[in-house]
């Protein structure tokens, strides 16, 4: 057990580009932050901050507007929407911002903005949001649907020049910190991040939703969501997008020309997800889909889990571990070519599903075999039955129903819970250490990858090619 005896709890409070909040968990600009009443309930539940649902010229939404991807019985692995910005009157939003700020002075209220690309329009909305009491502004350059057709949202976020220009307009007026929310629907997210920095942005947030079509009804041929017989591409978010978001946060934070305080967004639902974003440099995290799925209450475990983890690791505050993983991601050319691992199967844990066998034969390097019964085999073995031969033998065998009196159960003599004939064997001389088998094995810690000493010094591709070119060795 880690030492949990310290009585002082780690400090979760943050100062993000000048915006303070009691913890790094913010609600992202989306339906959970659509009104003052909701945000106050969220603060009561424990959320440190909220980015108000984007305000601007009120619009009309369609119905339906959401669809999702389910995976093996789990609901909403990926979530999709074709919703626009706030469809409530601007005055209502501004009045409620004032009220929330008055009642919850120590929680962060950031207001997300989007208006048409005119300098005066931006100056006006910035003034209105700050007059209402916003602690900061988030410019929505990301909305991939609807708004972009009007020259807003991702139409701005996809063109570095526009992004820089509008950021500069806003900075002319703004007294509070300005966060630029980046769209992932672009070839290199760093280009817009750099532009935002160039325009004077105080911080960044990433990512907004990813262009998607979640699926098509096989009876009506209409993609989801169905709006009177037609659909449109929408924005993808939820657990499915986290890997993409993590990579984009890393790209920005490892680029000196782009790096700014960043708020991580995309697929965050637990404290673990949040820690990963912070390890890649995020100063706060924002949550949308998970709060839509399970409600504001999820923040309780996010706070609790983060605190416990920080205590175990002896981190007194968020800054103590922020960014620690950034240098552990590098270019492929810097990876050690002489590092070698091979798969190892724990015979006590193996259940004999032989999924690893199939995976290695069809999806990897044909080095897992089912010939264990012939006793220990040292080194390379050339002759093996192919999967089809094994299956054909079984199918032509004759099985009968065991009758207790006629067929007494065989006494268990096997050394392992699974019959030896079904426990696969890895030919280590052939294993390339790709990991595939350990990923498909359904049993935790059954297949582990173990290091094999090659006796060679670490050498990257970069080093190898440089020494060749320079003639040194």
């Amino acid at each position, binding site marked *: 057990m880690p030492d949990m005896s310290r009585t002082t709890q780690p400090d979760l409070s943050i100062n993000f580009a000048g915006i303070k909040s009691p913890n790094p968990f913010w609600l992202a600009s989306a339906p959970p932050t659509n009104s003052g009443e909701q945000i106050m309930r969220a603060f009561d539940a424990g959320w440190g901050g909220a980015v108000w649902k984007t305000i601007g010229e009120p619009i009309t939404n369609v119905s339906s507007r959401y669809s999702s991807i389910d995976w093996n019985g789990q609901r909403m692995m990926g979530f999709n929407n074709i919703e626009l910005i706030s469809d409530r009157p601007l005055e209502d939003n501004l009045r409620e911002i004032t009220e929330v700020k008055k009642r919850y002075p120590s929680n962060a209220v950031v207001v997300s903005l989007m208006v048409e690309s005119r300098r005066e329009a931006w100056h006006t909305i910035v003034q209105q949001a700050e007059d209402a009491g916003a602690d900061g502004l988030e410019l929505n350059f990301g909305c991939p649907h609807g708004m972009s057709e009007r020259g807003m949202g991702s139409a701005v976020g996809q063109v570095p020049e526009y992004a820089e220009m509008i950021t500069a307009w806003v900075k002319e007026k703004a007294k509070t910190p300005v966060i630029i929310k980046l769209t992932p629907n672009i070839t290199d997210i760093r280009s817009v991040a750099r532009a935002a920095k160039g325009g004077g942005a105080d911080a960044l947030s990433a990512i907004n939703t990813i262009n998607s079509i979640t699926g098509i009804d096989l009876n009506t041929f209409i993609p989801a969501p169905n709006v009177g017989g037609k659909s449109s591409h929408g924005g993808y978010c939820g657990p499915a997008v986290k890997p993409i978001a993590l990579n984009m946060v890393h790209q920005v934070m490892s680029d000196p020309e782009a790096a700014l305080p960043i708020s991580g967004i995309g697929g965050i639902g637990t404290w673990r997800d949040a820690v990963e974003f912070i390890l890649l440099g995020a100063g706060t995290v924002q949550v949308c889909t998970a709060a839509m799925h399970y409600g504001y209450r999820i923040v309780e475990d996010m706070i609790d889990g983060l605190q416990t983890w920080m205590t175990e690791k002896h981190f007194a505050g968020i800054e103590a571990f922020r960014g620690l993983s950034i240098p552990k991601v590098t270019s492929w050319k810097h990876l050690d070519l002489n590092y070698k691992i091979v798969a190892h199967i724990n015979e006590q844990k193996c259940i004999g599903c*032989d*999924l690893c066998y199939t995976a290695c034969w069809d999806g990897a390097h044909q080095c897992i075999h089912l010939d264990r019964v012939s006793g220990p085999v040292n080194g390379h073995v050339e002759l093996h039955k192919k999967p089809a031969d094994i299956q054909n033998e079984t199918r032509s065998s004759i099985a009968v129903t065991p*009758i207790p009196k006629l067929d007494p159960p065989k006494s268990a003599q096997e050394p392992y819970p699974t019959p030896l004939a079904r426990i696969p064997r890895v030919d280590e001389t052939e294993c390339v250490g790709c990991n595939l088998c350990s990923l498909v094995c*359904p049993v935790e810690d059954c297949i582990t990858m173990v290091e094999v000493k090659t006796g060679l010094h670490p050498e990257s591709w970069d080093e190898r090619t440089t020494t060749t070119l320079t003639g040194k060795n």
Partner: protein
Amino acid sequence: MHDLPQQNAEIARRFPDLHPPFASQAAVIEANRCLNCFDAPCTAACPTHIDVPRFIKKIASGNLRGSALSILDANVLAASCSRVCPVQVLCEGACVMHRYNKQPIAIGRLQRYSMDAFHSSHGTLPRKSLEEHPQRIACLGAGPASLAAAAELRQRGYQVTVFDKRPQPGGLNTYGVAEYKLPLPDSLREIKLIEDLGVKFRFGVEIGRDIALEDIGQQFDYIFLGVGLGEMHKLDIPGGDHPAVIDALEFIANYKTGRTTGVQGDVVVIGAGNTAIDAANASTRLGAKRVTILYRRTQAHISAFDFEYEHAKDEGVAFHWLTQPVAVNSSNGKLTSIECTRMDIANDGTLHPVANSNFRVDCDIVIPAIGQSPLVEFLSKLSNVRIEKGRVLVDRATGQTSNPKYFAGGDCINGGREVVDAVADGKRAGIAIAKALEAAHA
């Protein structure tokens, strides 16, 4: 058999489904639990080698028709097998999940789910060849073994006639299996598909009595023997011929066909095999006051499956071990009790009555379930077909007997196992006969 008989309403009420079918959402969740093992042990354990992960993954993907067809490809009586198979000792017993999170995949219930969907969408059995061949094959008996052989041959275009001495097809599937597993109309529903393939049925014809074996031999190119076992052993003790002593098979057939819809008083069942358990469970459901099973050895020696034994205890059946009936007592023509003696098992395993240990168990009905005898007389009439210990001797892989024109399968070759074993035998024999015919006419 064009109008399928309806299940007797009273019987339906007393014998509701033992394992209710899956709702569709639950079926998909269960299907997704299956790991899709390589050379799946569940498939190896099934005597008909149904490709279990294949049909289960098709349920998960919503391809129910494909799922049912891949099941039927291996086992034409898949609907009844999904309900009557002792899955605990077959596919589900072999599932790797026992060693993982301990709960095997509900293969039987998933198979039933697929087959129910197939039947309710009025699916028909596919042909394996569209050619028609003139050769004729007779299947004697219309039980699972013959039905499987007949379907296999008919699907390849051969002319098949099935004979049975009973009025309905299905053998013990229709007349023997407990009603809470497989209701009689459901057994017949599945056989209707085999008839629809073009298999001819002749009921109420006992071969060897109504038609001579020689006649069959002359009219048909090949003969498949799927005659099962014969009568149950008689209770050979004083009073054993009392009219209230009714053997288990007759008792079961009576309630399944609606001839008996209730039982009054106390019932004593003799024997502790699966048939005895079925008769005892049926008695409790039919309203018997008290049901007792008498067995001359101990629980460790019973031939019933463990889960059947547990089920009987749940149904409220009482067991008397080391108890041998010696006489049936009656007064004024009414059965009153059964006289028993205590038994003792010696170290060498032999049984001995304990002196002066006689006692009586009061009862109104006695149901002996002490095994079926082989059809010795019938089998002895088969020319050149070798019989050993009352069983037809065959080559296991093909079902061929010592007379190359005769093939056999099911209870008459294995002495009585399960429906799925009979289906597997019939299928193998059907394939072997088709091969022989092809070779002869190539």
